[in-house]
């Protein structure tokens, strides 16, 4: 058990603020191990996270330990607006503490309050860990088939 896990953890979920960007990038890089995915530009100017209205961070003892980036989106038929989860990340030092579930539940509550019809995540069907997490949280497999064309 690491020192971090021994601490009494108090998880606080709050809306993401622009000031959280550096912490979010640091966790993303820690998870992926490379400087691959999110860039500062993506978060500032891109479609990612939109206006951050549906994005949250989890703080443990005042430190950002996880995040969920989501936005209102139209993805797939029927053409209705859903809360689309784009990235969910938890610092590996804080895994197995229910932080991901707390982040997703915060998003669900907000989307329900905003009268969105659903929350959606696109998952690789081979990723049993991620599928398991969302099934545990009450998500069910949808009926959309993804067809992709690469130019």
């Amino acid at each position: 058990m690491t020192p971090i896990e021994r601490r009494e953890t108090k998880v606080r979920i709050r809306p993401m603020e622009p000031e959280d960007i550096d912490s979010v990038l640091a966790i993303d890089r820690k998870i992926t191990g490379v400087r691959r995915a999110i860039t500062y530009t993506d978060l500032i100017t891109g479609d990612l996270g939109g206006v951050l209205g549906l994005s949250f961070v989890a703080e443990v003892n005042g430190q950002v330990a996880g995040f969920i980036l989501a936005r209102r989106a139209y993805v797939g038929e029927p053409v209705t607006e859903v809360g689309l989860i784009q990235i969910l990340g938890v610092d590996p030092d804080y895994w197995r503490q229910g932080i991901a579930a707390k982040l997703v539940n915060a998003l669900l509550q907000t989307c329900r309050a905003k009268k969105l019809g659903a929350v959606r995540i696109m998952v690789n069907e081979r990723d049993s860990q991620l599928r398991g997490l969302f099934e545990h949280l009450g998500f069910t497999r949808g009926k959309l088939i993804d067809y992709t064309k690469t130019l």
Partner: protein
Amino acid sequence: MSTMEKGTVNIRRMTRSDIDAVLALDEKFGRGRGSLSHKDLTAIGPGGPLDLSFVAEVGGKIVGFVINRLAYLMIPFTEVCIVQGMLVDPDYQGRGIGTKLFGKLLEHCHSQGINTIRALVEEHNKELQQFVQQLGFRRSPIVNYDKTFEG
């Protein structure tokens, strides 16, 4: 030969002023018979920075459309064009209008450096699945997981 069969097909970007014509076409011939709402289409923002929609005109009349949007999706984490839906007036089908709409879309995406196009097709919509396969789209392992809110 009916007058409907005459005239050349003009493919152009969708604009906000096309919303009423697109809704009328969807109301008359769409699978869900009016599955598109004015609010949803306005939110998609035809002509806006994230919109990649096109309409097909014959003799100045809109006879088909394909609604597409630029988005970031989690897996793989890249800028992608999402095909939301398409429709061609049955009176004008068999003239390759759907193929022309997609052709223009692919050409535009290529010119903008958007290298991935994804069409999320409902499981039961075999006709659209067959169509996108003919255009070179391939089924991916990405599936949607949803949590819907009742009431």
